[in-house]
C-alpha cells in the first residue's frame, strides 16, 4: 500500500511539466558553465599534450619523468611542461601543518580558546602530511599546470552548481507534495480514507526518492557531458593532493590537503556521495517547511528565506566576534553547500575538526530527520479541520 502511495506521489511530481523544463534549464546552464570556463580558462592543447606525454613518461614526477620528457620533440607545450615539472620538490617533506593553522589564527585574530582548537585540528593533519610526503603523492602529475583550472571547474564550480540545483529541486518538490492536498482541496477525502494522515509518510518517501533521482540525473548527465569535453581517462589515478593542486585563501596559497589520501576517482565518488546526502537534507528541510506551511508559495519563499538567513549567519557572527556561533553556523546546510569546494580537506578557518563536512552532513540528517518526525507527529495528532 505504502509503495502504491509512493508511486502515486511520484506521479504527481512527474506530472509537473515545469519540473522537466527546469531540469533541462539546469543542464543547459551546466553545459554553459563547462563551455564558458573551458573557453576562458582552460588550455586544451596543453592538456592534450600532457595526456600524450603521460603515456610515454608516466604520471609520477621525478628524474625519470624529466629525462623522458627531455627526449621528446621540442614544442611550446613541452617547454611549459618541462618548466613546471623539472626538479620539483616534495613540498610535503618540510610542511608543518601547525604553521598553516597559525596563519589562520594570526590573520583572523582568533581568541585563545578557538586558537587552541585550530592548532589541534592541524596537529591531527600532520600524520596525513607525513603520509603524503612518504608516498610522494605530491609528485602526481594530475593535469600539470592546468590542474587547478580543471579541479576548480569540476569541484568548485560544477559540483556546487549541480548540488545546488538538486537541493532546490528536492526541497521544492517536497513542499509541493506536502501542499498538494490543500491546494487541490482533496484534504478531506484523503484524511477520511483508510490511509488517512499516514499519506505523509508516503509523501516523505516519494520526496526523498525524487531528491535522490534528480541529483543522480543532474549529476550523472552533467558528469557525462564534462567527461565528454575533457578526457579524464589518464588522470583518474592521480592524487588530488598533487603539487599542482592548491587552495588560494587570505592567508596565502596552501596545498590541497585531504584527511586521507585520495586518488581523483575516489575523491569524486566521495564528493558525489556527500552531495547526495546534502540533497536528502534539503529534502528534509522541504518536508519540515511543507508541513508547517499549507500554502506552497509561502513555503517556497520561506525556504529561500531560510537559505538566505543560513548564508548570512556566518558573516554576521564573525563580524560581531561571536566565534562560537560562527563555527557552529558553518554546520548549517547552506554553509556546508557553500564550502563544498574544500570538502574532505582541512577547510581552513571554516572548521575546527577533521571531516567537518562529513560530521556536519550526517549531523544535519539526524537533526532535520528529528524535526521532520516531530512535525509529522504533531500533524498526526492535530485537528485537521482547523
Amino acid at each position, binding site marked *: 500500500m505504502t509503495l502504491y502511495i509512493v508511486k502515486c506521489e511520484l506521479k504527481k511530481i512527474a506530472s509537473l511539466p515545469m519540473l522537466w523544463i*527546469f531540469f533541462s534549464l539546469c543542464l543547459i546552464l551546466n553545459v554553459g558553465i563547462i563551455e564558458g570556463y573551458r573557453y576562458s580558462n582552460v588550455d586544451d592543447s596543453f592538456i592534450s599534450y600532457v595526456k600524450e606525454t603521460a603515456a610515454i613518461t608516466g604520471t609520477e614526477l621525478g628524474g625519470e619523468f624529466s629525462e623522458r620528457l627531455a627526449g621528446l620533440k621540442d614544442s611550446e607545450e613541452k617547454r611549459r611542461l618541462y618548466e613546471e615539472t623539472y626538479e620539483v620538490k616534495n613540498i610535503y617533506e618540510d610542511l608543518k601543518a601547525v604553521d598553516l593553522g597559525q596563519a589562520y589564527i594570526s590573520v583572523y585574530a582568533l581568541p585563545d580558546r578557538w586558537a587552541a582548537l585550530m592548532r589541534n585540528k592541524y596537529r591531527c593533519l600532520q600524520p596525513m602530511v607525513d603520509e603524503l610526503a612518504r608516498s610522494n603523492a605530491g609528485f602526481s602529475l594530475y593535469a600539470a599546470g592546468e590542474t587547478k583550472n580543471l579541479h576548480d571547474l569540476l569541484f568548485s564550480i560544477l559540483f556546487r552548481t549541480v548540488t545546488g540545483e538538486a537541493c532546490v529541486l528536492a526541497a521544492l518538490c517536497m513542499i509541493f507534495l506536502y501542499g498538494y492536498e490543500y491546494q487541490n482541496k482533496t484534504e478531506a477525502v484523503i484524511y477520511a480514507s483508510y490511509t488517512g494522515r499516514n499519506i505523509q509518510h508516503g509523501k516523505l518517501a516519494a520526496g526523498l526518492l525524487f531528491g535522490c533521482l534528480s541529483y543522480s540525473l543532474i549529476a550523472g548527465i552533467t558528469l557525462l557531458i564534462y567527461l565528454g569535453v575533457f578526457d579524464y581517462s589518464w588522470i583518474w589515478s592521480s592524487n588530488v593532493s598533487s603539487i599542482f593542486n592548491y587552495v588560494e585563501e587570505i592567508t596565502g596559497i596552501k596545498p590541497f590537503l585531504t584527511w586521507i589520501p585520495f586518488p581523483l576517482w575516489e575523491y569524486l565518488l566521495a564528493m558525489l556521495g556527500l552531495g547526495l546526502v546534502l540533497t536528502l537534507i534539503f529534502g528534509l528541510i522541504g518536508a519540515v517547511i511543507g508541513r508547517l506551511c499549507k500554502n506552497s508559495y509561502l513555503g517556497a*519563499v520561506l525556504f529561500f528565506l531560510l537559505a538566505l538567513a543560513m548564508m*548570512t549567519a556566518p558573516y554576521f557572527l564573525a563580524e560581531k566576534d561571536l566565534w562560537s556561533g560562527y563555527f557552529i553556523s558553518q554546520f548549517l546546510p547552506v554553509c556546508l553547500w557553500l564550502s563544498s569546494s574544500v570538502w574532505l580537506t582541512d577547510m581552513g578557518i571554516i572548521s575546527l575538526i577533521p571531516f567537518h563536512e562529513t560530521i556536519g552532513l550526517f549531523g544535519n540528517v539526524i537533526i532535520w530527520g528529528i524535526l521532520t518526525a516531530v512535525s509529522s507527529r504533531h500533524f498526526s495528532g492535530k485537528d485537521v479541520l482547523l
Partner: protein
Amino acid sequence: MLLCMELKKIWKPKILFVIVLIGLLCGYLRLEFPLKYFPNGHPQKEQYQLMLEWTEKYGITMEEEERLAAEEPLPLLKEQARVLEERDAPIGEDDVRYQAETLEGALFAYDIRYQHYDVDLENCTFAQQKRLRTLYDEKKLDGLLPYEIMENAQQYWRWGAIFLVLNVLVLLAPVITRDTLTDMKRLQYTSRQGRNILRTQFGAMLLSAGGIVVLELLVLGWLYAGLGTWRFWKNPINSFFYGEVYWFDLNFGQYLLFILLIMVLYAGGTAGIAFFISCSSKNYISLVLKMIPVFFFVGMLADVSVEGLFSFSNSLNRLTGIAGIEVWCGILVFLVGMVLGGLAYRRLTRMRDFTEGI
C-alpha cells in the same frame, strides 16, 4: 474599486513581511559594504577629500591656472612627509604622507590626461577610438571626480537592481495563480465585468511594481544619500582622475538618474513577465520553478547593465560594441514583459474553456 481590491490582493502583509526580511538579509550581505566602507581605506579617503575640496574651490572642472594654485601646498606636504619618513614615524589615520602622495598623484593625472592618446587607441574598437578622439579634441577630461565614487555607486545600485527584480517577482507572481487555485476565476469571469478583470489585474500589477520601485528607491536612496556623494552631483563622469572612459558626457547626477531609469525598466519588464508566468501556472511550485530562471536571467541582465554602465568596460558593451546598450537592454526587457503580459491577456480572454489556463 476593483483596482483597489486587486491591489489589496497583491499587497498582502505576509508577503510584505517576507520582502522586508529578504531586503534586510540581502542588504546586510551585499549593500552594507559599499555603505560602510566608503571611501575604503587609504589613499581613497584622501582622494575623496581632495576632490571635494577642489570641487568647492574650482567648480566641477579644473583649468590650467587652477592647477597651478592647487600645486601650492605640495612642497610643504612633501617636506612634512619627508620628515616623518626620516623619523620612521608610524603611519596614522590622517597621515600627511597619504595627503602628499594623493596630491602629487592627482596633479600628475591632470598633467598627463591628454598625453596617452596613442597608447589608449591601440586597444580600442573604431567607435571607441572615435569617442576617445572626441574626448581629447574637445578637452573633456578636465572633470573632478574621486576615483572610487563611480565603482561604489555601481556596486551599490547593481545589487539594488537585482533586489528590485526579486521583490517585484515575489510580490506579483502569485496573484493570478492564487485566483486559479481558489477558483476565483469562475466568479470573476462570470461577473458583469467578465474577463476584462485581467486588464485591471495587469494594471494593478504594473501599479504595484511602480509602488515597490518607489519604496525601494526611497529606502536605498535615503541610505545612499548618507554617503554625501550628492556633493558631486554636477561633476562630469569623464574625469582625468578616474581611469574609466564613458560613452556619454553626463554628470554624476545624470548618471545616477540613468541607473534609476534602468531599474524602473527592469522592474516594469519583470512585472509583465510575472503576469505571464502567473497566468500560465496551475500550482505554486510550477510558478516558483518559473520564477527561478526568470530571476536568474533578468537579475543577471540588470546586474551587468548597471555594473560599469555606459563605460567601455561594461560587459554588454564589450560584447556588442553598442554605446548605451544597457538602456536598450532595459527597454527590451520592458517590451518583452509588456508583450508577454499582453499575450497572456489575449490568450486568456479568447480561450473557450477558461479553466484551462494558458
